C-alpha cells in the first residue's frame, strides 16, 4: 500500500485504506486550511476559492486510486518495455538492453510519483446546488456540475478496480463532451454517492 501522503495544502481527509465498507458514513475532517481562506482546488499557489465555494467540504479519495493508476500505467509500460527488449535482443548490442531497462525503470518511478499525486489531487465536494470535482496533476481542473443538470449517474467498476475494491462514479449531463467522474471511492461510498446525486438531480431537476 502507498503510504499516506500529506501535501502542502494540509489534510484533505483521505479515506483510510484499511477502513472497511462504510467509510462514507464516517464524517471526514472538514477542509481547514492554515491560511485562513479556502482551498481552490489546486488551481493556484495561493488559495482563491470564493463565495459559497469557500465553505465547501472537500473530500479526498482512497489511496487505492494510486494503485489503480499505477497498475494501468505499468501494464502499458510492460507492453512497451517488452517490445523494446525483443528489439534490443534481436537487433541491438547488449548495452542497449541496459539503457532500455533504465528508461523503463525511470518511467515506472515517474508513474509511481504521478499516481500518488493523482490520487492525492482527486477530491470532490457536494455543494448546496452543485457537485464540484477537482483533479489533475499537470493540468489542474475544477469541474462544477449543477445537480439539476445531472441526467444519469453511473457506478462503474473495472476489473482492476474490482481487485482493489474501488469504484468510479460517473456523472452524465445533456452535454456529451463532459467528463466528470469521481474515481477511487469504495464501493459502498460510490453507491451512496450515486444515490445522493440521483436524489438531488430529481429534486433540482428542471426537465429537458
Amino acid at each position, binding site marked *: 500500500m502507498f503510504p499516506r501522503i500529506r501535501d502542502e495544502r494540509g489534510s484533505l481527509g483521505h479515506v483510510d485504506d484499511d477502513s472497511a465498507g462504510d467509510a462514507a458514513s464516517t464524517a471526514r475532517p472538514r477542509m481547514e486550511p492554515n491560511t485562513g481562506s479556502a482551498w*481552490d*482546488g489546486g*488551481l*493556484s*499557489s*495561493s488559495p*482563491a*476559492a*470564493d*463565495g*459559497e*465555494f469557500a465553505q465547501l467540504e472537500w473530500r479526498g479519495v482512497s489511496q487505492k486510486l494510486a494503485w489503480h493508476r499505477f497498475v494501468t500505467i505499468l501494464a502499458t509500460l510492460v507492453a512497451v518495455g517488452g517490445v523494446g527488449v525483443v528489439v534490443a535482443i534481436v537487433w541491438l548490442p547488449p548495452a542497449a538492453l541496459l539503457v532500455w531497462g533504465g528508461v523503463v525503470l525511470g518511467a515506472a518511478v515517474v508513474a509511481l510519483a504521478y499516481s500518488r499525486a493523482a490520487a492525492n489531487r482527486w477530491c470532490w465536494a457536494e*455543494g*448546496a*446546488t*452543485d457537485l*464540484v470535482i477537482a483533479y*489533475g496533476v*499537470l*493540468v*489542474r*481542473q*475544477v*469541474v*462544477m*456540475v*449543477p445537480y*439539476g*443538470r445531472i441526467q444519469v449517474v453511473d457506478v462503474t467498476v473495472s476489473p482492476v478496480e474490482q481487485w482493489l475494491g474501488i469504484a468510479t462514479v460517473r456523472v452524465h*449531463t*445533456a*452535454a*456529451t*463532451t*463532459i467528463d*466528470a467522474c469521481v474515481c477511487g471511492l469504495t464501493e459502498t461510498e460510490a453507491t451512496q454517492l450515486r444515490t445522493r446525486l440521483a436524489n438531488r438531480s430529481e429534486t*433540482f431537476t*428542471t*426537465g*429537458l
Partner: protein
Amino acid sequence: MATERRRGSPADVEHSPAPPGATVSGSWFGLRWNNTGAGAGADTNGARQSPSPRGSATTGGFSGLPALREVRSPTGGSTGTSSPAGDTPAASASASAHTELSPDSREHPAAPPPRLAPATRTPEPSPDHYSPHTPPPLSSSRSSPQWARPPASGRDTGSAPAVPGPPAERGGGEPGPEGPHQLHWLTVPLRVLLVTTVMFAVVGVLLLELEPDLGPVLTMAVTLLFIGATGAVCLADWWTHTYELSGDHLLLRRGLVHHVEREVPLSRLQTVDTVCPLLVRVLGLAEVRIELAGGDRSEVRLAYLSRYEADRLRSALIAHAAGLPGGTPPPEDRPLFVLGTPMLLTALVAQLPVLVAFGGLLVLAVVGLAFREPAVLGAVIPLALGLIRGFLGPLLRYGGFRAAVAPDGLRLRFGLVQRRDQTVPPGRVHAVRVVEPLLWQLLGLARLDANIAGHVGERQMDSATLLPVVPRRLAFELTHHLLPGVDPGRAQLVPARGLRGRTAELGVTETALVARSGVLCRTAVIVAHSAVQSIRLASGPVERWLGRVSLVVETVPGPVRLHAPARGVREGWRVLARVSSGVDRGRMRGHGPERWVTRTDRWPVRN
C-alpha cells in the same frame, strides 16, 4: 509586468452584481440594449413596446406571452403588467430608455392580486416563487383558447378588460388533428417512383448492357415486377402508418409485420420543421420533422403530408407543447427580417475564401485560355467545388430567407430549391453565438448560430445556423428573443489577463455568461445560466505559474462553445459561484420550458 498590475485591479471585483435599481445603460457592443426608441430599428419596434421594459425579456421571451397571461387570467385587469415601471406603453416608452428594474421588483409584483380560483396545477415547491396567476383549467374554457395577440398589433391589454376576444376568423372552431390520421396518399407513388428510379439507374443499365436483344424486354419486366413489389410494400406501410394527437402525446403507429408504436411526449418537443424538397413541393406536399431532445434516433419524420395538414399539425404540436388545446388557431407572426437577395449575394461574395477562390479561378481561366493549357483543369475543379460549397450552396439554401416572431416561437423559412419551415419554440435555444467575419464587419453583417438540444450530428449542420446573414444590430436584438429572460446587455465585459487582453473578454450577469473573442473574426457567445450543463476551470503548469485559469462552459452539443482563456483564479471561482446561484434561481423560477404558456411562474427556463 502587466499581469502583476492587473491582479490587484478592479478586474477582481467586476463580477459582482449590479446594485439593484442601478441605471445601466445597456451598452452592448455599441448598441443600446433596452432602448425602446429609435435605436432599436424600425422593424423591431413592436417587440420593444411592451408595457414593461424588461417584460418582454423576463416573462415571455417572444413578447406576446405576457399578453396571453393577461387575457386568460381570472383575476383580470392589470395583472400582467407586473412591473412598477409603468402600466402604459406611453409611460414605459419614456421610462424604460435607461432604467433597469432591480431583480427583486422583476420577480414579484408589488401587490399580488387576490387569488380567485383554486390552483389547479400549481407546481409543488415554494409557491413564493410563482406569480399568483392561476391558469384556468384547460377543459372548461368556454372562451376558445388562443395564443397571445401578435406583438405588432398593439399592446393595449394592459388597460383593456381582460376578456378573451372572439376567436380568430381562420379556423377558429376547427378541431385539432386529434384522431388517427394517415399520410397523404401521394406518398405511395412518390416512394415507388424514387425507389424505381434508383433501381433502374443501378440494375436496369446493367441489364440493358447484358443482353442487347433481350435487354429491353427483360428490363421492362424486372422494372414492372419491382414497381409492383415496392408498391405493395409502400402501400402497406402507408396504410398502417398513422399519427394521432392524444393528450400530451403524439402517437405513431407503423408497420404491418413488424408493428411499431411510438408515443412521443410533446413536453420534450424541441423544434418542428416542415421540409419541402423540390418535387414534393411541386406536388403540394411537405415533410414534418419533429425534434426531441434525445440523441440520435429521437427525430420523428412524417413524410409526406399535404401542405395544409403539415401546417395544421405543426401548429397543433406547438400548441400542445405550450399547454394549449390542439385546436388553438395558430398565432399570427410578426415579420422580423427578410433577407433580400442583394444582401445575401453581397455577404456571400464578401467572404475571404470565396474571393480567393474566385480570383484563383479567374487567373487560371486566363492562363488556360492564353496558353491553351488543359492542365489548369486540375486546379480549376477543386476551386470550383469550393466555390459551389461556399457560395452556391448557401445561396440555394438560404435564398428567400425570412424570419418571423410569433408567440409560439421563432419561425424561419428559407430555401430556393428545398423549402424549409423551421419553428423554434421559446426557451429551446441553449446558447447563441454571433459571428462577424472580417469583411462582414465592414458591411455591418453577422451570422447567428445556436445550440438547440437534439440537433446532433448531421441535423446539427442542418440547423445550427439560425440566421445566415443578418444586420449585426438585428442579430444582437434577436439574442434577446432567443434567450428569454437573459440580459446580456448588462454584462460588463472584462478583458482577459496578459497578452490576450481585449481579444478575449468575459462578462457575467445574473442570468447569462457572455464571452467575446477574436479580432479578425469577431464572435460573441451568450449562454444563459439556466442552460449551463457544467463549468470547468483548468490551468496548466504555465497558467498556474502566471496565476490564470481558463474557463470552459459546456451546454448541449452544438456549434457554440464558450471558452474564456486567461482569467484570474479568484475571478474563475467567482464566475462559478455566480453561475451556480443563477442556475439555482432559474430552477426556482420555472419548471423547464414545457407548457410555457400556461405555467404559473413568470420565468421561462430552459434545461
